[in-house]
């Protein structure tokens, strides 16, 4: 039986070129290209690697966002995914992580059977790392976050992963179906292929509204979101560091002590 993977992906502004309005503290989105979120590309790449090995694997990429997020799904199809799903509705606009995971979980339920959900750790525009784990909780699935190495058994029933910690890693064996979140150390995402680009339009992209995913409107959108942004600001840049030089360690330590004393730190 074909292995079914759902990859959660988000279209985000390219933070390499983004600027922040210093007065309002909000992102300046004009003229900023939208891209496939980096960690999500790692999740998709791992799914594609499974498909390379087991070609009957079916990959559905699911996203939530404005209609133009379809472009990002097309890009995923051009990389090799089989199908795209976009949840797009004004009713889900402004959702925080809780509301977003409600909507995405509902979309996944509508997709139906799956063996694995792979998401990126976090999106570069919000950096919350919450949506993946919340989807898993709401769907009652076992989950492993921060996956840096991945191996699936031949029977496709269990997966062994390395989970990154701040000071090491855990090796965890998990049964399918389950939810994993990828970090950039997991792999190097492939490019689209030229053939993939010219075949992407032949693959289905479903655009679903709130009705289609049968979601309770009290659980999605700005109003339903428990998180509110109180204030956003650009932190003042730190001053330049000082490099102390000297011929001996003792000499440098002496200079350091003088400096610290001068600032009344010690």
């Amino acid at each position, binding site marked *: 039986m074909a292995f079914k993977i759902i990859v959660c992906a988000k279209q985000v502004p390219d933070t390499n070129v983004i600027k922040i309005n210093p007065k309002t503290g909000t992102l300046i989105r004009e003229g900023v290209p939208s891209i496939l979120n980096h960690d999500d590309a790692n999740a998709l790449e791992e799914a594609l690697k499974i498909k390379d090995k087991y070609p009957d694997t079916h990959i559905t990429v699911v996203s939530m966002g404005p209609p133009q997020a379809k472009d990002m799904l*097309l890009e995923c199809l051009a990389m090799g995914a089989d199908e795209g799903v976009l949840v797009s509705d004004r009713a889900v606009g402004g959702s925080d992580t809780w509301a977003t995971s409600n909507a995405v979980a509902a979309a996944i339920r509508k997709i139906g059977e799956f063996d694995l959900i792979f998401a990126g750790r976090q999106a570069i525009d919000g950096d919350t790392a919450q949506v993946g784990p919340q989807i898993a909780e709401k769907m009652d699935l076992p989950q492993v976050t921060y996956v840096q190495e991945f191996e699936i058994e031949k029977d496709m029933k269990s997966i062994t992963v390395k989970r990154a910690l701040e000071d090491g890693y855990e090796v965890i064996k998990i049964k399918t179906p389950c939810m994993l979140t990828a970090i950039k150390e997991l792999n190097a995402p492939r*490019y689209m*292929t*030229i*053939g993939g*680009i010219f075949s*992407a339009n032949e693959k289905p992209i479903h655009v679903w509204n709130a009705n289609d995913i049968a979601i309770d409107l009290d659980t999605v959108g700005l109003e339903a979101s428990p998180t509110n942004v109180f204030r956003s600001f650009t932190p003042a840049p730190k001053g330049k560091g000082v490099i102390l030089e000297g011929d001996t360690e003792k000499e440098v330590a002496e200079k350091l002590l003088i400096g610290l004393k001068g600032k009344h730190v010690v």
Partner: protein
Amino acid sequence: MNFQLTKEQEFVRKMVREFATNEVEPIAADIDAEHRFPEENVKKMADYGLLGIPFPKEVGGTGGDQLSYAIAVEELSRVCGSTGVICSAHTSLCCWPIYAWGNDEQKEKYLSDLCSGRKLGAFGLTEPNAGTDAGGQQTRADLNGDQWVLNGAKVFITNGGYADVFIIMAMTDKKKKTRGGISAFIVEKDDPGFSIGKTEDKMGICASSTTELIFQNCTIPKDRLLGQVGDGFKVAMSTLDGGRIGIASQALGIAQGAFDVTVDYMKARKQFGKKLSQMEALQFEVANMATQIEAARLLIYQAADMKERNLPYGKYSAMAKLFAAETAMYVTTKAVQLHGGYGYTKDYPVERMMRDAKITEIYEGTSEVQKMVIAASVFGK
């Protein structure tokens, strides 16, 4: 008139830009210095479908269009002119004539391998005494029973040392010359009597393999004739019409690459207390460069679009190549100038780009040949 790229064409640019930035640019200076053919990147280009762009899926291509192909060559050449011409010579000069002139068996046998990049292609027309004067071919092909026997030599053959399949022009009737005396053949690298001669030591595109091809009683089956006996000159000229879009795109890419590097340099470099980018005299140079590049781009995209729509485009691809090649020389020379002394060193890529640019005024028809083609269409033949 619609100057908007399709979603697919935009994706091709995005994909090839990323590929070129991550895979090609980091080794571009080294392979130039070492005169090393980048086999590892040709393999990657094959894997990503970059060696069969403008051919339908039925024959093993990607199903892409001529403009996407032009964009791909442009983006590769933006960081490495050598890599750009490897793709261009393979696609325009070997895949295309088989696609356009080959019979079903030949397409079946060769196109899928070529488009997927399992095999690399080259094209042999030029000889020591037959460059612009293509009718002066001395390579001969004689029918001997069920086999053609080729004798002679070709020079300056792009991809020569690494190609598996060669489209070769040879004289089959000396009296008729270009009027039916030349025929086209498909030669494979392991054919008996065929060998690679001298590898040229060039001024630019140093990572491209440019070699001599030698035919000493090279014997190939009768069915390797491409088109009919006597079609060779037409095969060659129609192939070069399309090849010019590839070389024009290479020239455009080289110009754009030199331009981008120069703009970045000018934003950082300070003299007399201000940045070069703030000096009006230099700004005006940059304005001219930008305008020429954009004009070249429009000529090329127009020619590619006409080819895609099966309109007569020979005049337009000649104009595109003439103008893009001159633009590449103009822009890269200015780029070196705007870098000052640094531009003349190998610490910056613009000197390589200037050396690479020059060939675009020479191969696949010199600028003078382009003018002949354009003038012939203006005045009639």
